[in-house]
């Protein structure tokens, strides 16, 4: 059974329809990517899944339960976390406070400490800067922090919204390596990207979102090989 199952999801902003009945699923252990141009509805999809935007119609099931109408804190508590578009780390708080907020729903201090140790092991730069105000980190470091903060929740499903945005090509490759690495450790990934080439390169399966509708789906390799997709999203 799918870990995440989105069915006929419809979201309106006032009279504007942002999502026009999209359906897709993410199975346990997969990397699934949602690609599409600016304004296609990718971020809306992500925010609706985690409970920030109420859908107009359709359903979202996670781990076998209907989460369509649940508030976000209950959804997060079921083992879902998100690296939002633009990272949205807490700029005025320290690196340490950001990480602690990532583990907000965990009350067992020993577990939190162990997770922080893990993060510091993977990203030594964050350990070095633990007391630094997060807004003073470089773009790449902020992205590491945003991903670490999401990992602090110990998620089963991690959703990343444009993690490569605004990063240098070298850092972009690094971010995709980290995503693959997290997946290898057992975390299911839903990845939203404009960088379609890279995203399709690591994805088991992919969906193409155009103006609020899913127009194509297939394995990462299939879509990467499709002439139509190449033309529209891969620059030729």
């Amino acid at each position, binding site marked *: 059974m799918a870990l995440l199952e989105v069915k006929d999801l419809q979201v309106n902003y006032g009279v504007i329809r942002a999502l026009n009945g999209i359906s897709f699923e993410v199975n346990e252990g997969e990397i699934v990517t949602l690609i599409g141009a600016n304004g296609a509805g990718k971020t809306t999809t992500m*925010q609706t899944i*985690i*409970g*920030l935007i109420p859908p107009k119609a359709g359903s979202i099931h996670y781990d076998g339960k209907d989460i369509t109408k649940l*508030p*976000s*804190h209950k959804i*997060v*508590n079921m083992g879902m*976390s*998100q690296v*939002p578009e*633009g990272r*949205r*780390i*807490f*700029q*005025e*708080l320290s690196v340490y*406070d950001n990480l*602690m*907020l*990532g583990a*907000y*729903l965990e009350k067992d201090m020993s577990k939190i400490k162990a997770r922080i140790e893990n993060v510091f092991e993977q990203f030594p730069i964050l350990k070095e800067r633990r007391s630094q105000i997060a*807004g003073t980190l470089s*773009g790449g470091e902020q992205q590491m922090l945003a991903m670490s*903060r999401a990992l602090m*929740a110990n998620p089963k499903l991690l959703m990343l919204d444009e993690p490569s945005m*605004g990063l240098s090509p070298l850092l972009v490759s690094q971010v995709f390596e980290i995503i693959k690495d997290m997946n290898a450790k057992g975390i299911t990934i839903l990845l939203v990207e404009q960088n379609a080439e890279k995203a399709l390169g690591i994805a088991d399966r992919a969906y193409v979102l155009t103006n609020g509708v899913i127009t194509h789906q297939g394995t990462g390799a299939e879509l990467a090989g499709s002439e139509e997709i190449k033309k529209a999203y891969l620059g030729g």
Partner: protein
Amino acid sequence: MVIAIDGLSLGAIYALIALGYTMVYGIAKMLNFAHGDVIMVGAYMIYTLCTLTWTTGSLPIWAGALIAFVVSIVVCTLLGMVNEKVAYKPLRGASPLAALITAIGVSYLLQGIAQLIWGAEQRSISILDRLGTVRVGTVAIRWSSIITVVCGAILMIGLTLFVKKTRTGRAMLAVSEDKGAAQMMGINVNKIVSVTFAIGSGLATFAALFYLPTTAISPTLGSMPGIKAFAAAVIGGIGSIPGAVVGGILLGVVEVVCNSFEATASYTTAIEFALLIIILLVRPIGLLGKKRRVKV
């Protein structure tokens, strides 16, 4: 010396009230203009309960006052939370103007209810001023002022530590900076807003106790300190906790100093608000206000 202590004392009162304004603004992004009236309700509660325990009980005076005060804090804290749930929560997401008008409405509602219950005539009660004065060298300093300064400092330090070091405090800062991102961390924003109103109203009850020695109790008691504390919060930079403290103390000291000179005494309030205008002209975000970083 007397001026300094009295100024700090009044400043601490303004700061305690300003903290309520600034925290609510930071977290719920609204101006709770009914906040001053919580002080008024606190004052009436303390007055009524003190009178009750003093006339009926066999308790010592200080014990009766302590019980009255603790009960008043509980009542005001609940009042703040209920006020938010009933009047403001349904308006979250509505235009800020709707919440502002509602807050003004709640303010008049509380004043009206107080007038119904306690009547319009002024009352007074002496609690902290019973302690009299202490002589330091040649000057006499009121104990009530000393207690206000010391307790005010303890409360403000306590609040700062709470916000910086605890899980709930950290969540408050997160909600204040980015509500959506805070929700993604699993923070229940409604709960945090409720806690914020509770803390603000609790601090306002302390302010009421400290304010009582220098004021008569009436249904409009909260208006003036409410407005001045709001000015203090803006001077310090609304949304900033240290800003509220600095703004409050600054305004309190200015007020006491102005009052102590014959030439300026009748212009005190004008001078205070002129100060607000000047500071806003020079530094529109307030003394310790932060410019929000534009998100990349």
